[in-house]
């Protein structure tokens, strides 16, 4: 039992407590949840402080706080043994995301003050999802990862479906179907993978992801063996396996054209759940692509890098264009998420250390900023139950503090130097631009197209700012709205200020992140590229 198990199962313990507490203590549920999230944040920073930054590697030596317990060991008769372990560990890639998760969860817990009905159910589901999200970032066993990954779905379905907006049924179902569609096919690949990989020590088939990442552990002649070219339906099995898992995670990211669940889910979800969706769920997609897709199928990743980069560029531009056209503020921000997550894909595809570091940083930065953005939308929506951009004008004069935070969040998101998004996007674009000369995977115009995306994000953010906040104060709801639209409350300050500062700190001292994860990401990128190229030579039939 180390810190990782504690951070995962702490919410479960408090979940049980909430379930046991009678209904008359329901106001306590909020504090219990907030307390859980704060405790998790504390643990996350303890992990951050105790982390050895120079340790890196593709095998078990690259991971810290490793915990491995035998879980399911089955004798499968003719097949031999099957090994599933309770296997946790973190490296420079997962710790930043773990900290982000704890922070976003805290923000979401604060934002949950707006929830007024069925508190017991809400907070129980909230904590269950919290545990699952933490688990996803810590799991090193594919089975365990999948269990956590799927465990998120049901709570989210209910959280969107029960506490969401008018079209919540549709949005919740769509979200569930999309994700399950991706993950069921991923399950098929998982089955194929564990049949292909044997634990070098015990000789049993294993779900251990680290073993799957080491080409030496593949069984000769197995479906996904990199040593020989197995084909399924005439396509090399490894390319197919990569594509299937990539699609599963791409749905989560989301990558255009698999993004259509996102605007619905984000818009219909209550504010705290929008925050979690944008702040964490999308990152799980990105994390999965880098850790699992790229980690296990580096050859296919190199092979498809152009397409992945292209999908990134399309997401950036298409998301931005859509955001430009939206009249609903929440939808605008949802599409801006699609656009910003495109950078993550572009950075990964570049196979450069700068690009990948930038992409991971973009995940962290977008996690912080989207939390702010969705919360800010929630602020006015909770006051007047309207969030259409044309219905507001001159908010800056009416709610100056609110407007200040909106400006900070907007400018940070559009990549103003000094904020985290600038560093992240700059590094991603540098990596993309260098890719042409370093490894010739991505053409230079993709970097240029990416910068165009930044330009467009400036356009939609500034235009929204101009429409909603400047000019003479005029609201659709007239006098009653003016009364309801009071400026920020202390609890809203408590959420927005730390988030804004965090983005600023990361923007001014990016080394806080880069120094931390550099060793891991540098090894990861170099090793992936090297093994990828080697295996690709075999694959070039």
């Amino acid at each position, binding site marked *: 039992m180390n810190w990782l198990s504690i951070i995962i199962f702490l919410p479960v313990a408090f979940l049980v407590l909430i379930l046991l507490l009678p209904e008359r203590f329901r106001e306590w549920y909020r504090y219990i949840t907030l307390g859980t999230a704060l405790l998790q944040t504390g643990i996350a920073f303890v992990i951050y402080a105790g982390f050895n930054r120079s340790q890196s590697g593709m095998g078990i030596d690259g991971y810290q706080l490793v915990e491995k317990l035998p879980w*399911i*060991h*089955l*004798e*499968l*008769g*003719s*097949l031999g043994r*099957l090994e599933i372990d309770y296997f946790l560990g973190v490296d420079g890639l997962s710790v930043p995301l773990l900290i982000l998760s704890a922070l976003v969860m805290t923000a979401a817990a604060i934002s949950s003050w707006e929830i007024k009905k*069925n508190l017991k*159910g809400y907070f129980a589901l909230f904590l269950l999802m919290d545990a699952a999200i933490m688990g996803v970032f810590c799991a090193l066993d594919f089975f365990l990862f*999948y*269990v956590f990954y*799927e*465990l998120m*779905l*049901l709570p989210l*379905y*209910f959280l969107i*479906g*029960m506490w969401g907006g008018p079209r*919540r*049924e549709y949005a*919740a*179902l769509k979200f*569930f*179907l999309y994700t*399950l*569609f991706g993950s*069921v*096919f991923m*399950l*098929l690949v998982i*089955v*194929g993978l*564990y*049949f292909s990989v044997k634990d070098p020590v015990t000789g049993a088939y294993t779900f251990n992801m680290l073993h799957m990442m080491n080409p030496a552990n593949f069984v000769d002649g*197995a*479906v996904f063996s990199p040593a020989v070219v197995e084909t*399924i*339906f005439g396509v090399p099995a490894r390319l197919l396996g990569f594509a299937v898992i990539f699609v599963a995670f791409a749905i989560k990211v989301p990558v255009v054209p698999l993004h259509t669940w996102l605007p619905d889910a984000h818009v219909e979800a209550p504010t705290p759940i929008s925050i979690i969706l944008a702040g964490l769920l999308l990152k799980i997609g990105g994390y999965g692509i880098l850790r699992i897709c790229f980690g296990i199928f580096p050859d296919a990743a190199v092979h498809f890098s152009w397409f992945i980069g292209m999908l990134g560029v399309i997401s950036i531009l298409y998301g931005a264009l859509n955001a430009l056209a939206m009249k609903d503020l929440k939808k605008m921000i949802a599409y801006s998420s699609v656009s910003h997550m495109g950078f993550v894909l572009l950075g990964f595809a570049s196979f450069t250390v700068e690009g990948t570091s930038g992409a991971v940083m973009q995940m962290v930065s977008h996690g912080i900023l989207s939390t702010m953005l969705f919360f800010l939308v929630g602020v006015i929506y909770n006051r007047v139950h309207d969030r259409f951009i044309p219905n507001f004008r001159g908010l800056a004069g009416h709610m100056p503090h609110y407007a200040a935070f909106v400006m900070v969040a907007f400018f940070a998101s559009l990549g103003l130097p000094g904020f985290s998004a600038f560093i992240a996007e700059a590094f991603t674009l540098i990596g993309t631009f260098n890719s042409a000369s370093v490894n010739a995977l991505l053409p230079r115009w993709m970097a240029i197209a990416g910068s165009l995306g930044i330009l467009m994000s400036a356009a939609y953010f500034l235009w929204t700012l101009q429409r909603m906040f400047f000019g003479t104060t005029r609201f659709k709801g007239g006098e009653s709205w003016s009364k309801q639209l009071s400026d920020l409350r202390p609890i809203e300050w408590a959420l927005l200020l730390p988030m804004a500062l965090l983005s600023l700190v990361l923007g001014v001292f990016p080394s806080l992140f880069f120094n931390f994860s550099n060793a891991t990401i540098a090894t990861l990128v170099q090793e992936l590229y090297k093994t990828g190229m080697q295996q690709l030579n075999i694959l070039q039939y």
Partner: protein
Amino acid sequence: MKEMLPHISKNVEEVLGSLGFFLPELLLGALFLLLILADLLLGRRYKNGSPIIAFAGVLIITLITCFQFEDAGKVFFGGMLHLSVFALLLKILFGVGMLLVITFAVRDFRIRHNEKGWGDFFSLLVAVLLGLNLMAMSSNLLMVFLSIEMVSICSYILVGYTTRERLAAESSMKYVLFGAVCSAVMLYGISLLYGLTGTLQLNSEFTTRLAATDALAAGLALFTTLAGFGFKLSMFPFHFWVADVYEGSTNSVLAFLSTLPKAAGVGVLVQFMHATYGFDWATWLAVFSIITMTIGNFQALWQDNLKRMLAYSSIGHSGFLLMGLAAFSQTGEMAVYYYLVIYTLTNIGAFVIIGMLANILHSENVNSYKGLGFKMPVVSVCFVILLMSLIGIPPAGGFVAKLLLFSAALEGYGSDGNILFLLMMIAGAINTVVALFYYLKIPLNLFLRKNEGMVIVARGHLLLKAVIVTLTALTVLLGIFPELVMRYFEG
């Protein structure tokens, strides 16, 4: 005549020696008689007498069955019965399932307030359990036929137990007709097999002789014989009876009908497949699997009546079971057994909930469940978890079951490269998503929709609630620790 005499003593010895292995079944027979007598003598004074005797008896017999592991692998009664490990495990599953069904039936309104009394009902359940046990163990085609007929005839009566209602009468009639035709076809197949091989024993002799016959003739004989098992398994093309019969049956009968005969059908099919080794079962079962699961799940999409929905979904589950059987390996057998355990627990649980809610709402339509989740939170949450298990979402047991089936199918692909295995896996994945779509109608109505005007007359359903919670807990527990079941296959 005189030369037969030494054989008689040998036969008698053999029969006497076999009795020890046959103890649970003998006791079941005795229990059946006891129940009839008890109902005749005490039925009027002690209404709960029959179910209590039945429950206690089945419990004891199941416990005795658990001690049969040392006899596993024995063939007895002159090769009529074969107590394989798989059959033994199935027998334990039948016992546990029957205990749940008996408990459920005690609180089933249509059984409890039946004007014919309910003593016969429990003796029938015991009789059908005997039939199921014989089905799982039978290793002689005659025994196969006898045991299937025993189960069928008992099932016909169970379905028609509430025949005062028009729907029940209709469904019972449909069931009888369809079952009779399938039995007849199977009998025809068995006669062909006997003609081809000269033996009714499902042993190695049968295998070698069958392999020597003309492939077309053997195939015809096997397919016609398959009709009998297919009927029990509700696999394509013998699935047409399912929805109508389910809709007309009362819920406790349904909890039985949708689970245990299916498991027994699997048991017979496994024995039969072992005996017909060499026939290309993989290809055919894969094709049937794909068609069965697709038909079941897609038809379930359009249903609002929960019984019909679960009827079609049970056809879908048969498709999944066939996936494991098609692989025809040790992994496949294990996966199928695990799937059966989880499926039996979850499906009985689901029908208990449907029955309980039907008692309250007088409706089995999913739209009548609106907002119920807030009135009956425990039951509703359990329902959702059971449905997740049926879909195959972790950590419920259905997920591990599906994973094992996929593993078996992939192993099958690895061993002979038959592309149908891959298609079957893809069909399984697609069907899982389809299943999500219709199963989610239930949580949608339970929790997402509001129904302010609903008044629930809370009645004591403590027994059923206890059953529901236990089953849900078991489903999750077995999902997290599948070894609790799987370890019996090792060694």
